[in-house]
């Protein structure tokens, strides 16, 4: 006992054994495959099916109702294997085309893109494209050549296309490569044909639906489902092409950006300060080069794959090169690892901070005048112009750009210079104390400290004036590791400092009782008292000029409890308070508060 299937060939119903059905269906599908690329393929199929139906009819009768395996075999034998009669189909077509020019349009194969090995200069990419778009190959080659000058775009594009586009090896490939000329007429014709086909199919399904066998409703539904599926497949194909185009456009754009960035970096690196920074930043010069290669691969490979995928989708190239994907992945990964390795190696050298604190011995005065030193020798080495330095009052500019670090030249050796800063805090002793704090980063604390020791910074005391260098320098050829110098001046209570105008950008957030900003602290004198730094000659706090010229009469002085007389000042302490008198001015501290009078005041204001 065998199961049978009911089938319909050319409108004739047959009962056929299941196995025989499978064989027949496979056979018909193979033929269909052979003619799928041929215009009129459906028609040929229809003719063949009609003939098969006729043959099968002769093999069945009222007595023998079922089509058996042997019947199918004999039909296939009579009809022949598709490779026996369909193989040279495309060749026949062109032969025909050459013979009858008047009717050439209908039956040429669908156009596909191939590399043309017969007209190649390198790999036949240009000639293939020219064949596809039906233009003279000269123009394509010219465009490719010109694009070389846009950061070599076309070289990359060419290589990708070389990989992506298969070579036209067989005659069929070569014919498909030339294919039909693409113009408006052809496109509209193709669309019309396709629409006609769809219309026919719909009508067919409609008829099938009307005449459907109600015992087999599944069949009709399946057909409708099939139709819907085909519709979406078509839609999907269009969508894939669109995506391909977008990928291609963006891929080429990203490629341009990447190439011009690398190109730009190599130009900058060739002849400017940037080059020095590379040498001082990386442990070795080669690390930079390797790092750039790593980053290029890391970004470049996905971009290349984007273009690759775009071209594949756009030109409907289905073959996949698994080795290519695999090696692209490996190259990308190695780019990532290289970039990561360089990043970690370089970053590690910044890992730990080290600090040393040096005290500068000072000759003590009641008032210290703080100013910025114009270190001409250093400015020369840094190639900073005298006027540049002065007009900007300590704000160093190079090419109108403020920078915290710069590179100087001492003979043939490069060195780093950086901006230092000054902070002023109360002293716990009765002396002015000056500290220079040097910081640097290194692989570990010890190497960082070693590096900090290689920082050079100078202050000069002349009488009651201390001049600070604006910049510190790092030993020659020493790497850049975020070296910093902070200067700390500790002011004892009761002592005065004066900040010169040129210190505006040198001092950093000095705490004071009135919360005055750094910019307003300059060009004034400040005394350290119990609360902190207090401005002596600021507006608002300052007494007016009358007070200065005629100080208020002091209350009668009772016997003195304590008195110190020095060369610079007299200090008296008694029940009325503390009274200090000096050449520069007077300070009275009593129940009414603090009174400060200075001679300097009148000169400065």
């Amino acid at each position, binding site marked *: 006992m065998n199961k049978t299937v009911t089938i319909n060939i*050319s409108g004739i119903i047959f009962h056929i054994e299941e196995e025989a059905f499978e064989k027949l269906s496979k056979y018909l599908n193979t033929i269909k495959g052979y003619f799928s690329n041929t215009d009129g393929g459906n028609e040929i199929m229809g003719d063949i099916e009609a003939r098969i139906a006729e043959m099968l009819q002769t093999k069945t009768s009222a007595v023998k109702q079922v089509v058996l395996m042997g019947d199918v075999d004999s039909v296939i034998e009579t009809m*022949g294997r598709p490779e026996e009669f369909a193989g040279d189909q495309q060749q*026949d077509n062109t032969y025909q085309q050459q013979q009858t020019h008047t009717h050439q349009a209908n*039956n040429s194969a669908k156009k596909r893109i191939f590399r043309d090995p017969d007209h190649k200069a390198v790999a036949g990419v240009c000639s293939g494209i020219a064949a596809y778009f039906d233009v003279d190959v000269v123009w394509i080659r010219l465009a490719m050549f010109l694009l070389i000058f846009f950061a070599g775009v076309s070289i990359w594009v060419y290589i990708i296309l070389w990989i992506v586009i298969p070579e036209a090896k067989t005659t069929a490939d070569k014919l498909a490569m030339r294919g039909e000329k693409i113009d408006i007429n052809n496109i509209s014709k193709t669309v019309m044909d396709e629409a006609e086909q769809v219309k026919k199919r719909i009508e067919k399904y409609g008829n099938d639906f009307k005449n459907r066998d109600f015992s087999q409703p599944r069949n009709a539904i399946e057909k409708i489902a099939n139709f819907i599926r085909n519709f979406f497949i078509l839609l999907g194909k269009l969508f894939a092409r669109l995506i391909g185009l977008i990928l291609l456009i963006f891929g080429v754009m990203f490629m341009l950006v990447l190439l011009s960035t690398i190109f730009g970096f190599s130009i900058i690196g060739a002849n400017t300060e940037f080059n020095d920074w590379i040498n001082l930043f990386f442990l070795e010069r080669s690390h930079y080069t390797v790092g750039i290669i790593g980053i290029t691969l890391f970004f470049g490979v996905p971009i290349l794959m984007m273009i690759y995928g775009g071209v594949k989708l756009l030109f409907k190239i289905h073959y996949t090169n698994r080795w290519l994907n695999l090696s692209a992945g490996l190259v990308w990964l190695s780019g990532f690892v290289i970039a990561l390795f360089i990043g970690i190696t370089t970053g590690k050298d910044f890992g730990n901070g080290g600090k040393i604190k040096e005290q500068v011995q000072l000759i003590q005065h009641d008032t210290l005048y703080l100013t910025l030193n114009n270190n001409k020798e250093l400015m020369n080495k840094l190639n900073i112009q005298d006027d540049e330095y002065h007009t900007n009052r300590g704000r160093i500019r190079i090419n109108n750009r403020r920078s915290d670090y710069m590179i100087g030249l001492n003979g043939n050796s490069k060195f780093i210079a950086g901006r230092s800063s000054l902070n002023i805090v109360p002293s716990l002793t009765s002396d002015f104390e000056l500290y220079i704090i040097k910081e640097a980063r290194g692989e570990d604390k010890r190497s960082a400290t070693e590096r900090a020791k290689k920082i050079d910074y100078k202050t000069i005391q002349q009488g009651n004036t201390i001049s600070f260098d604006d910049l510190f320098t790092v030993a020659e050829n020493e790497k850049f590791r975020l070296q910093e110098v902070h200067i700390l001046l500790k002011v004892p209570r009761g002592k005065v400092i004066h900040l010169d105008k040129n210190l505006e950008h040198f001092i950093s957030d000095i705490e004071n009782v009135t919360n005055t900003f750094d910019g307003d602290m300059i060009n004034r004198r400040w005394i350290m008292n119990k609360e902190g730094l207090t401005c002596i000659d600021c507006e608002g706090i300052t007494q007016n000029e009358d007070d200065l010229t005629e100080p208020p009469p002091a209350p009668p002085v009772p016997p003195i409890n304590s008195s110190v007389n020095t060369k610079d000042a007299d200090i008296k302490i008694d029940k009325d308070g503390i009274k200090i008198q000096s050449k520069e001015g007077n300070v009275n501290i009593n129940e009414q508060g603090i009174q400060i009078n200075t001679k300097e005041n009148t000169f400065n204001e």
Partner: protein
Amino acid sequence: MINSENTSNTQGGAEKAGAQTQMRKGVLELCVLSILSKGDAYPTQIIENLKGTKLVVVEGTLYPLLTRLKNTGLLAYRWEESTSGPPRKYYKLTQIGEQYLKELQTSWTELVEAVNKTISNNN
């Protein structure tokens, strides 16, 4: 020696088969057009006519040929209902087809004469 002879034999055989196939294919077009010039026919009839000529090894060869000739405008067709089976596609020679057949017949005659002459001269 035996081996090499064998190889050359098989090669010769393959070439012979290929040439014969090509010859048959070329002549088949002429035969189909000739059959249709005597009256309209549907594929099965054409095959009946060709049977015994050894021109058609497998029937499948005929259908692509018919479609191609139809597409190039040499043939046209009409549907006719059949009492016993599926509707039949009756092919018919068009005017262009008739003209083309005439040209083909002339060149065929010339070809046959030329070939015969060459063969007999060389023999």
